[in-house]
């Protein structure tokens, strides 16, 4: 491997979270973007072609070294690492709505889900999956929520655009209403 690829590999190994391309660039200010991309490709191919227990994945706008899926059970059985807990159906529904309609308000989420969402927003916020991104224009200036990079990490998404566009889904959601129009909740 080239020296640059080795440097990036060391940094990726040391980090518990995906490292953004810009952060990788900071490791060697002299490296051109092209050289950086080549080095990343080199690491990925190194793992894939030569056959390693780990792989390089592109997640949340960055890169992360992850174990291969086929070893997950053995690692978990030996209690060396534990998978994060699955999210509840209520949490997933809330996240799906926020991901598509962000910034969105609690009232809008409740209207689409047809239930009061109770502590779900709080626990999603505690897990770092969503954040308050501002206030709406409507009555009482409701808090508006959006997803965070941790959301992308949790679902292994490179970016939000990786989710199918609304018009690619089997049934189209109505166009997002403006916050002021959404406020007078039926």
């Amino acid at each position, binding site marked *: 491997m080239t020296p640059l690829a080795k440097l990036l590999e060391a940094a990726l190994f040391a980090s518990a979270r995906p490292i953004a391309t810009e952060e990788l660039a900071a490791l060697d200010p002299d490296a051109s973007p092209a050289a950086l991309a080549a080095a990343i490709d080199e690491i990925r191919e190194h793992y894939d072609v030569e056959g390693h227990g780990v792989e390089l994945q592109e997640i949340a706008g960055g890169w992360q070294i992850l174990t291969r899926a086929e070893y997950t059970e053995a690692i978990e059985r030996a209690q060396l690492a534990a998978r994060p807990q*699955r999210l509840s159906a209520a949490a997933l529904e809330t996240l799906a709505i926020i991901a598509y309609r962000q910034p969105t308000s609690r009232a809008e989420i409740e209207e689409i889900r047809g239930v009061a969402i109770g502590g779900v927003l709080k626990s999603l916020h505690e897990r770092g999956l969503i954040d308050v991104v501002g206030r709406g224009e409507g009555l009482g200036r409701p808090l508006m929520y959006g997803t965070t990079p941790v959301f992308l990490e949790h679902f292994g998404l490179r970016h939000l655009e990786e989710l199918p566009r609304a018009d690619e889904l089997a*049934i189209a959601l109505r166009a997002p209403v403006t916050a002021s129009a959404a406020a007078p909740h039926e």
Partner: protein
Amino acid sequence: MSTSAFGADTPSSSFSVELPQYSGPLDLLLTLIREEQVDIYDIPIARIAQQFVERIRTLELNEAAEYLEMAARLLRIKAQLLLPAGEQELWEDPRAELVRRLLEYQQMREVVDLLERRGEERRSHFGRAYLPAQPAPLQAPLALSLVELLSAVDRVLRAVSRPDMHDVVPRAIDVPGAIELIRTVLMLRARVLLSEIIADAREPWQVLSALLGLLELAKLGELRLAQPRPFANVEISPAAPPDASARDAASEAA
């Protein structure tokens, strides 16, 4: 700000209902429509409404307001459908709003399925030591014995002359004075140690003033405080130029 905002979300526990099968009335309704294999655009409201009510009774969900509200809505639509239609051109299907919500809900469920698949795929890979998001840790673990702690206190107290234990005279802590002093020193020198700043202090309140002054200036961003390890001497330097400090802050945040 956000924590207090979220605090209001906490539900009163008496109203949280365990719904093992359905995540809401729309979910139950969609399940019934699927089970009965009826057209979502032409829902036989009377039949579905009856089944809906039966289902929430068997599930003992009758405390869940949302399910009751949906049951009421279905019955109202059923009643509206029984009324003579009147003029055909102005007639609106009373089911339209319900159908719209069901379709919207179903689409959201489609996204949920996708997120579930992607989440499951991500869960089957481990990163290096899974770390839940948490505040930045201390520079070094604070492993100190009582003796070390006391000797540290002693060192600070020895920096000033023995305080007079009997004389309880309230003294105003002079933070502005200390700030002025520190600013003057930093104009002359690029790096100062805390021990030097408090070297002339005669009394604990003077040390305290210097300390508060330093913290205030650090908060204002006029200087940087560095301590290589706990209880080491504190190094004071003027704040870096704005662009450099911004970069530092960015890398720390990352």
